[in-house]
């Protein structure tokens, strides 16, 4: 649709026409703000807990478990130096052999959701799929935070 619009504007005499091909999807997936009636409704990105503990692949599982639980968490997100999500440690994984590396214990490639998804949509998904928490990332895979079911009233 936007290529047609851009070409049409040129033919109407506009000298400098640009086309943002990523569009609204790209903008919102990057967690950037919008305006409109939905803009005021709560979304996954604003409700997700950005203070979720994070760790690296080569750390010792027992160290992460202790650190997470000291902070009152039963989960940790595995990221790289660019904050790209590589895995998730839930309660079940945190309780595995503490001497192994995070990379061996983690649940790799957890399903992730974009920040613009409305809270009520996330709540329905988490109820239907019996999920306690889901990872929220930008479109390029960077961690926004962990959304827990109580954050969306699920």
């Amino acid at each position: 649709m936007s290529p047609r619009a851009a070409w049409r504007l040129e033919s109407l005499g506009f000298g400098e026409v640009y086309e943002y091909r990523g569009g609204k999807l790209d903008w919102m997936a990057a967690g950037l703000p919008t305006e409109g009636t939905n803009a005021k409704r709560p979304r996954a990105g604003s409700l997700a807990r950005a203070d979720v503990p994070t760790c690296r692949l080569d750390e010792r599982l027992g160290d992460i478990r202790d650190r997470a639980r000291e902070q009152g968490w039963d989960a940790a997100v595995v990221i790289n130096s660019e904050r790209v999500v590589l895995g998730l440690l839930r309660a079940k994984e945190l309780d595995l052999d503490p001497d192994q590396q995070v990379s061996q214990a983690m649940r790799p490639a957890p399903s992730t959701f974009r920040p613009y998804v409305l809270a009520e949509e996330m709540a329905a998904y988490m109820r239907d799929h019996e999920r306690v928490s889901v990872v929220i990332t930008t479109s390029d895979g960077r961690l926004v935070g962990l959304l827990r079911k109580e954050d969306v009233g699920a």
Partner: protein
Amino acid sequence: MPAEIDRNELRRLVEAGAQLVEVLPEEEYAEDHLPKAISIPLGRLDDEASTTLDTNRPVIVYCWDIA
């Protein structure tokens, strides 16, 4: 030929005064649109472009994604 831009270029151009136009249906614009965007649904572009937009200033169009 219209130039393709990414979101960083979009922000720079809008700050520099470019006109930003969402060409999706009005209802979709009402729910969510980029800051500073105006709504001209594709079907009304021919009629409204010359009255609503300044032909001498840069203009950026977008929709949901490329489709």
